[in-house]
């Protein structure tokens, strides 16, 4: 049985750990709310651009554009989005496991790593990391997504890669994040939803040129949304992980306090019986 002093020391150390996990949980909860709001306010733009794109694509009647062009796939690129930091349960591991399963059978995949965990994982395993974006901060800016989108679009148009996928964690709710794979390039134009009578649009200057400037924006928005979802998911996962860590610490403290009391009582009992024994010996 450990001594009372050892037990006291352990309880103290667990208590301070518990304080840290509790604080991290609360910080994550606040950041989660902000991340969710950011994801929420990005939705109208994403929906609208999808809506306009489907209509323009339908109206331009199969106009071709380099970003739409389906080629024979020689090289595939993957944008893998993780967090910069750990301590968020299985969040990063789940995304990376999914990504690893995807690229296993792909010859010479190009990796675009977003987030430090993603970069470290793929560089350590000797993958070709074409670009990495780390330390993007707590609030994702649209300009950051734009930069990443520009990089892959340039590669795609230069013919260096023939397909681009996004692998990230979809935010289902605070407790659930699901790793998903989304095709980014070539762009698959969303089908037009048939609501009511078909409206004839005037395109200014022409459907083709609107399409040409709409497509890059659509790609940027898709990347932006993925990054926002991943951010919200990261904070959700961290909050959940820190919550259960705090609970575990509480349980451990309870158990240790119990054995501490038992050890203390045993020591007292021993002392009394020694005194009684000593007194008895004198008689």
């Amino acid at each position: 049985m450990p001594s009372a002093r050892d037990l006291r020391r352990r309880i103290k150390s667990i208590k301070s750990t518990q304080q840290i996990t509790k604080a991290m949980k609360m910080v994550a909860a606040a950041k989660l709310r902000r991340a969710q709001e950011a994801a929420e306010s990005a939705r109208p733009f994403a929906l609208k651009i999808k809506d306009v794109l489907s209509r323009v694509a339908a109206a331009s009647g199969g106009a071709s554009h380099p970003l739409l062009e389906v080629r024979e796939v020689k090289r595939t690129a993957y944008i893998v989005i993780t967090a910069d930091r750990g301590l968020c349960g299985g969040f990063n591991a789940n995304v990376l496991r999914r990504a690893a399963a995807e690229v296993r059978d792909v010859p010479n995949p190009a990796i675009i790593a977003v987030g430090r965990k993603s970069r470290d994982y793929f560089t350590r395993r000797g993958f070709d990391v074409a670009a990495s974006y780390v330390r993007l901060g707590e609030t994702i800016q649209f300009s950051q997504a734009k930069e990443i989108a520009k990089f892959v679009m340039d590669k795609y148009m230069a013919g260096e890669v023939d397909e681009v996928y996004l692998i990230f964690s979809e935010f289902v709710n605070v407790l659930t994040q699901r790793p998903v794979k989304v095709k980014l390039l070539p762009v698959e134009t969303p089908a037009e939803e048939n609501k009511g009578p078909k409206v004839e649009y005037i395109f200014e200057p022409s459907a083709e040129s609107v399409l040409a400037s709409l497509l890059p924006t659509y790609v940027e928005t898709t990347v932006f949304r993925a990054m926002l979802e991943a951010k919200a998911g990261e904070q959700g996962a961290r909050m959940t992980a820190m919550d259960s860590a705090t609970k575990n610490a509480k349980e451990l403290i309870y158990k240790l306090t119990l054995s501490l009391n038992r050890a203390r009582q045993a020591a007292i009992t021993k002392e009394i019986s020694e005194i009684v024994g000593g007194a008895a010996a004198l008689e």
Partner: protein
Amino acid sequence: MAKTQRLDIVTPEKVVFSEEIEFIVAPGADGELGILPEHAPLVTALKIGVLRVQQGGKFFKVAVSGGFMEVKNSRVVVLADTAERADEIDVERARAAKQRAEQRLASKSPEIDIARAEIALQKALNRIKAAE
């Protein structure tokens, strides 16, 4: 009461404006175009420029950095990378950005992206113009 139409200005980060207005003039890719209520359905690309919006008989300006505009059923949706109302523009910052862009263009060093610096310059000039 004059007829009105709904105007939504949306950027990837948030909805900037969503109110009833009377008239809007937008910098279309092929030149400016004015939209009154009950305009025919239209989709256009926008240049970096200034939106002029009439609401309650008064005009106000919004600086946009490219994007799209969709018009349908007296509803105008502007999708832009950034959009700032003239009274929200930080002129000092825009001036500083203008100077930076000009310096970069003037330095002519090979590692700068000329196209990018030019766009930055245009955006800065556009902001200053809208604020004045």
